[in-house]
């Protein structure tokens, strides 16, 4: 858990490790590297020559702007609309040291060494999330301006961050996005200085290619959590702001805020989302069930108050889920009847093959209470109505029934035939009646017919020779040749030349 001692154990896939903070070796800012060198014991020199050198160093890190690629993820997602009840917004940054890279109070660290800074500042994060509800925006809009304008507002009622002389001239010329927040609003919603530590932490994630808890990032990240719940039914705007130079302006920070109506921040990121109006917390609502509607079996609420004269047996009927409903009898009489739906408070014994002809057949009579029980009658009736109301069901069921009848008619016909044939024809009981009749009939015929085979006269075919030349109008090849050679009209040659066919 410690920020300085990172264990060597690598994370298992799907594991997330939380760290309180991840401090950079040196905080960002302006440094002076001082080198002193004294050369001693040089021959011929009375005084040891001393050299010294000063080197100005600027350790730069995001300060007034933040590259968009630094933001890994925000929750609730930007522009999302959803059930973000009692959610604290958070932003995940790809630089694990980012929240601790700058000192929140750069002026007072002055000329301290980096070791002293570590001790005095207690590594207070310089970033925080500010959540504003729609009604509080009051025309608040991020404005682009130079850093110089951020530090020296033209409006004297706007409180700028106190960065002293830590800002270089070059930095002052750069552009940044700023927001001016009503100072009283800021004082009421901003975290206190001692709370900032709780609201920033580092996590190491090993998702191993798989999404775990909606996270698909892998590696080290810093996370900044807002201190304000999202408001349901409203647009919520979240701003990641720099608190650098604002330490004393934080709630209970001790700074003098009189004379100011607004406070100006460098805004590093922002997004908004809409939290839908929801009925309440999931767990909260479910845990409130016992106090509200209750967690019970499906039965009417206890009626003991009004049931002084109700026999115990009747109470039992109520207990297993029955209730009485108005019952209008066919003859017009008004009465009550027991009814219980399909959802019952006690297990029931299933009766085999229920089949009623009418719903009235399913009415039962309870002798103890002297009332009818209409439960199954009602079930039967609604089943019938539902069946009728679905034309496709009714049609297909009818068709199937008729097709089954046709099949059964054929089957029963066969049974009748089989009964009559039974004495004459051997029937194979293992076969379907129809097939057994067919087979039996075939066997019967083949057996009976073999006895009469001898009596049937054999028919031999008559050979009939036909002279092609004798057929009318048909000439042999030779005759055709002769006809052609003779030059006589062809038609005469077709005259019938009838001869006796019998030889």
């Amino acid at each position: 858990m410690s920020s300085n001692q990172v264990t060597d154990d690598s994370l298992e896939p799907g594991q997330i490790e939380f760290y309180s903070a991840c401090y950079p070796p040196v905080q960002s800012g302006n440094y002076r590297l001082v080198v002193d060198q004294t050369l001693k014991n040089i021959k011929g020199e009375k005084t040891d020559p001393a050299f010294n050198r000063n080197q100005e160093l600027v350790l730069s890190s995001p300060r007034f702007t933040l590259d968009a690629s630094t933001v890994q993820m925000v929750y609730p997602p930007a522009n999302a609309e959803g059930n973000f009840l009692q959610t604290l917004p958070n932003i995940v940054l790809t630089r694990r040291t980012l929240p601790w890279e700058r000192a929140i109070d750069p002026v007072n660290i002055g000329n301290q060494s980096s070791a002293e800074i570590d001790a005095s500042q207690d590594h207070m994060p310089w970033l925080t999330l500010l959540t504003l509800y729609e009604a509080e925006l009051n025309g608040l809009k991020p404005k682009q301006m130079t850093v110089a304008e951020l530090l020296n507002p033209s409006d004297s009622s706007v409180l700028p961050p106190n960065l002293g002389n830590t800002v270089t001239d070059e930095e002052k010329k750069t552009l940044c996005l700023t927001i001016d927040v009503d100072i009283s609003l800021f004082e009421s919603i901003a975290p206190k200085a001692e709370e900032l530590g709780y609201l920033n932490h580092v996590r190491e994630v090993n998702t191993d290619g798989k999404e775990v808890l909606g996270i698909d990032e892998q590696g080290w990240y810093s996370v900044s959590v807002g201190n304000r719940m999202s408001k349901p039914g409203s647009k919520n705007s979240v701003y990641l702001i720099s608190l650098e130079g604002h330490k004393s302006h934080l709630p209970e920070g001790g700074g003098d805020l009189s004379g100011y109506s607004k406070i100006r921040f460098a805004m590093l990121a922002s997004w908004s989302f809409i939290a839908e109006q929801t009925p309440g917390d999931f767990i909260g609502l479910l845990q409130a069930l016992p106090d509200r509607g209750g967690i019970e079996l499906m039965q009417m609420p206890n009626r003991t108050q009004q049931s002084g004269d109700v026999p115990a047996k009747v109470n039992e009927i109520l207990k297993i889920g029955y209730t009485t409903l108005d019952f209008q009898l066919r003859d017009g009489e008004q009465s009550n009847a027991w009814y219980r739906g399909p959802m019952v408070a006690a297990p029931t014994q299933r009766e085999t093959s229920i089949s009623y002809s009418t719903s009235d057949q399913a009415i039962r009579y309870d002798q103890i209470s002297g009332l009818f029980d209409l439960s199954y009658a009602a079930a039967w009736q609604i089943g019938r109505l539902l069946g009728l109301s679905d034309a496709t069901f009714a049609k297909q069921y009818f068709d199937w029934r008729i097709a089954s009848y046709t099949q059964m008619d054929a089957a029963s016909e066969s049974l009748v035939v089989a009964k009559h044939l039974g004495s004459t024809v051997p029937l194979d009981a293992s076969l379907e009646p129809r097939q057994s009749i067919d087979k039996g009939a075939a066997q019967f015929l083949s057996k009976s017919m073999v006895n009469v085979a001898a009596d049937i006269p054999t028919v031999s075919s008559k050979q009939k020779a036909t002279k092609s030349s004798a057929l009318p109008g048909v000439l042999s090849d030779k005759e055709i040749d002769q006809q052609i050679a003779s030059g006589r009209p062809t038609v005469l040659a077709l005259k019938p030349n009838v001869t006796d066919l019998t030889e």
Partner: protein
Amino acid sequence: MKSWLPRNTEFSDKQKATTTALAQQSLAANEKPMPKYVVNWLSQLRLLYGVPFEYLVCDEKYLPVESIRFFYIDRNWSDALIDGALSIGTTSRDQLFKNSNVQGISDTLDGLENSVRSSLRGLDQSSGSNSELVCGFLLRSSVVSGYPGMEVRGYADKEGTKLLDILRLERLSPDILLCLFAGKPADVALQQPPEGLHFGVRKDETDNSYYVYLRHISGDDVGMQILPAERASAEFRDGTEGVLNVSKTAQNIATRLNVEKLPSSAFAIQMIRASGLQQFTTGVPPKNNQDNSHD
């Protein structure tokens, strides 16, 4: 038409034969199986699809606002329902047909009970075995409308190892959820639709206070919720809407966890709000049940 047999003999023979044929007829042996649409329709009807709500719950007192009611399904009721549907347009012969078929149809539907939900969801038929006992619950709560993707699991044992098949899970109205299990659940868990890892607090709807569930910050279970559930109250800054009093909340948590000062990593772990899970266990008074909720 003249016949070589006395007509009344033939008629009585035929009638007997028909009866025998009908008696022999069962759905399985029938060469003409029931059309698929009819089978599907009936198996859905058996799970009370399409039955008007007034028939299921005839009085509001059965299911008041913000309540959950567990029940057994009365098979006789649903059998009567099916029988009613099968008796449309019946003459005496159809009646006979129905009487001889109703058991076969009932058996077929018993076998199909388990696949109704999976086929409606476009999945392969579930392989689960059908159960004689069908139980379920009706939940009437604004949770139903507020958390549409709510997950339901029912277990046959209190240890939560034998998962029961869900035969039907459906919203009957915006705030009424019907769930039917193939079997008797000893433990029912309702889970909030999963969300990403995020931070937040929980609200006690009975007294409008806020709290967080405590998680282990050391040991093997680090990050897991401490069970049975323990809460630390979340404090808010006076006079402003929704601003968490971070220091005080962290102090509350530290006190409950018996640590002097909570590091911010541990604070982050405590503030994680995962999707909620609420269990209802049979035999345990519902009030005691509350603490079984997980984060």
